[in-house]
């Protein structure tokens, strides 16, 4: 079980959180081609290494926040 640092509640068990996938995915604006829309909906980075991702403290303060986690070691560093 991961120990995840919630910016509001501090370090809490992983099972209080819901995973939100890659962080920083912006809704496309303006004229969007089918390919660009497909990329927005379906394509996410899948790195072996550091990954910037979203977590939702669903069973706590219900805050969404971003963290960086290493996808091999599972080490977490919270982002400002």
């Amino acid at each position: 079980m991961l120990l995840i640092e919630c910016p509001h509640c501090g370090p809490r068990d992983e099972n209080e959180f819901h995973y939100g996938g890659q962080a920083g995915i912006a809704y496309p604006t303006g004229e969007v081609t089918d390919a660009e829309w497909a990329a927005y909906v379906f394509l996410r980075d899948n790195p072996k290494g550091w990954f910037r991702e979203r977590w939702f403290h669903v069973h706590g303060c219900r805050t969404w926040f971003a963290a960086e986690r290493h996808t091999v070691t599972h080490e977490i560093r919270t982002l400002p």
Partner: protein
Amino acid sequence: MSHPDFLWRNPDPRPAYDVVIVGGGGHGLATAYYLAKNHGITNVAVLERGWLAGGNMARNTTIIRSNYLWDESAAIYEHSLKLWEGLSEELDYDLQFSQRGVLNLAHNLSDVREGRRRVNANQLNGVDAEWLDPDEVKKFCPILNVSDRARYPVMGATLQRRAGIAKHDHVAWALARAADAYGVDLIQGCEVTGFEITGGRVTAVETSRGRIAAGKVALAAAGHTSVLAERAGIRLPLQSHPLQALVSELLEPVLDCVVMSNAVHVYVSQAHKGELVMGAGIDAYNSYGQRGGVHVIEAQMAAALELFPIFSRVRVLRTWAGIVDVSPDASPVIGPTPVEGLYVNAGWGTGGFKATPGSGWVYADTLAHDRPHPLAEPFGLERFTTGALIDEHGAAAVAH
């Protein structure tokens, strides 16, 4: 004492091949085998970073079935199941393929409706399927708790009698031996570190054992496909997750079928040797760590004990995780990529083992003819742009 004969050579890589397959798991080995057998293409190398079949092939729960909802999936998984039915004989190796029947339990009305719909869809597609009411479920699997007071009441189940399990190691060894006999080079300890792409076409792979020129390159690397694709400048709609499983200590025969429950993320069978083999759901986060959280195993065991009270004193022997590549619609991605000569076969997620021969068959055909095999055609990358998804979350979900 002498060492038994090796089942395949252990060759050094040659400078060039017609086809280089990246990944020496079940799908890569099956692809090599069918390239040689069906298409006479034997100037082939299978490059494996570790040792043959040491990834998900060594970590899965060996369930084989074809009761998927949509026509496209039913066709490819049923093709695979039909190949399984002749594979031991064809490869002259006892794969311990046991068609003992797979139950998919329904715990609520929505499960019941979904299950009955799937039975109807399967029958229309020529896939054997039956709907069992709770009494029939009890008869088929007497140790299952179907009482009204159960935490997860069993309101019925789908049954595919032709479904079952096989011995994963035997499958890998048999395919490797057969491919090797055709002259395919199975090269272990050889990691692909990059791709040489000239004018939009792949011409070679860079590996930990040097450059290897290739007419065509076929990815078959499951959970690590995204990492490889990125080295070729391609983004794929895949996310890699840990999928955990466990085995118990060895027991006398107690369970003679496979029981799956999507709702509570449990699937269990008893291997020939005697251990109970149980799988969990995926861990939520992306990972390449080949391990998951204990709480996932704990939740899965808790559910398993509700369904099988008789297992309450069974001890766990070991748990592990494999890295599965999950696609947005829980269906595989098979076919060409934006790089000419570079092909992908991935996204089998939590259920690739059952597809081993079928996947290899259609992938080999796709490589041999430079166009998708008819059964693979609906599974191309373009479906994520056209919107023609093949949503198998109901049939695949997490439970495989």
